[in-house]
């Protein structure tokens, strides 16, 4: 389940270089915190790992296979990216949670029952949120947790969290961080960007971005 960047160089069009010859392996089952100055390219690393960006040179390997040879939907089901700003569509919480199951590529998956969805809401301390309530009326903290549940319903092997606690209050942030530690404890690889100086419990490794390269701290 390891994810590897192999001599990756990346720059945005007409933008400065973000990564230059960067190499690093994220080991399966680890809980990795990615740190670096703002604008250093932390989000870009996560976006490269799920192919929302493509490197100009170098390769990204998942389970030893180059990701650009994989079916994009399969890669993204296994390596799930949760955006920094939670994005929910107008519609109920249930519709938002079941959205991935409406996509052709996920057609073989069985959509979870209401019972399972409710159990997930409870485990993220969202017992007060009804599946029939409107997704666009939730607080940012609640929306972020709904987005995380939505990704986890696809049973990914790796979850990429892009500053999941950036716009959350302390209580919501703690719930998300505890959940991340719990997932990693169950064998899921968690790669998380953090701005905070505090290291959450359960973190096994820290990676720093400096001078366009990646290295374990």
């Amino acid at each position, binding site marked *: 389940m390891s994810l590897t960047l192999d001599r990756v160089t990346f720059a945005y069009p007409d933008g400065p270089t973000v990564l230059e010859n960067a190499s690093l392996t994220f080991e399966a089952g680890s809980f990795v915190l990615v740190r670096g100055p703002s604008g250093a390219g932390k989000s870009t690393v996560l976006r490269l790992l*799920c*192919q929302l960006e493509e490197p100009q040179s170098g390769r990204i390997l998942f389970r030893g296979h180059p990701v650009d040879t994989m079916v994009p*939907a399969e890669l*993204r*089901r296994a390596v799930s990216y949760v955006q920094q*700003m939670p994005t929910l569509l107008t519609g109920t919480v249930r519709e938002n949670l079941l959205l991935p199951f409406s*996509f052709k*590529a996920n057609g073989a998956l069985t959509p979870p029952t209401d019972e399972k969805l409710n159990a997930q809401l409870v485990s993220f301390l969202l017992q007060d949120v009804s599946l029939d309530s409107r997704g666009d009326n939730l607080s940012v903290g609640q929306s972020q947790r709904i987005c995380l549940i*939505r990704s986890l319903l696809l049973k990914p092997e790796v979850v990429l969290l892009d500053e999941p606690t950036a716009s959350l209050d302390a209580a919501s942030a703690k719930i998300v961080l505890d959940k991340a530690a719990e997932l990693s404890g169950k064998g899921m690889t968690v790669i998380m960007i953090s701005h905070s100086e505090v290291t959450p419990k359960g973190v096994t490794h820290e990676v720093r971005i400096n001078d366009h390269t990646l290295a374990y701290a």
Partner: protein
Amino acid sequence: MTPGIIEISPWQLLLCLGFVLLAGGASVYHKLGLGRDLLVGTVRTFAQLFLMGYVLTFIFETHTSWLVLLMFTFMVAAAVHIIKGRVKEHSVPFLIPTFVSMLISYSLVSYIVTAVIVGAKPWWTPQYFIPLAGMIVGNSMTAISIALERLFSDLKARRNEVEMRLALGADYREASQDILRNAIKAGMIPSINSLMAVGLVSLPGMMTGQILSGTDPLIAIRYQIVVMLMLVASTALGAIIVTGLVRRRCFSDAQRLIVR
């Protein structure tokens, strides 16, 4: 002189320059700085229309199909050039798909109108084919540039939403279906609105022209109805095909949004 038409002599045409002088005077008086544009615009109007007049006379006289189709291809190319100027997105190559789809779909619509509805024999008779095809291309040009502009601006503004869907396993179609729908709608709305306003707010140019040249208004309106309906079809067709082809180019094979 054609019976029923009052011809405009060169002197009368020169008299019309008085209108431009009026506008120029207003520009000087109010310091609008539009004098140069007015001058260039007036010269271009004379030059372009006289040129078109001679080209059309030549095409009407030679009466050969390939010349008519060459003229049509030129009109489409000019329309694509204008679309290029209006659409402010250049990271996605959209000119060739736009040109090809406009050329194919509008030759089809123009053929149906001249051959089946108007019943011109042969179907490419320049007197019918060129003005009708010209209206199709001109109106669809506006529809396509509105639709493309909307497609690109929505893909940028709603990037988070598109990428959220991609990250959850959507393909580019699933990730952008609302955006495509809105773009097509935006392109079609002006021609649908004109269905409502025609005859009340405006007398369309072609009908006005026919009436001025002595055609019975009841015949002129029939032509106008054909034109209005064919424009609805061609703007819909143009907006759907072009946005569909261009949307594909906004995403990489790895289902990654390229437009920034």
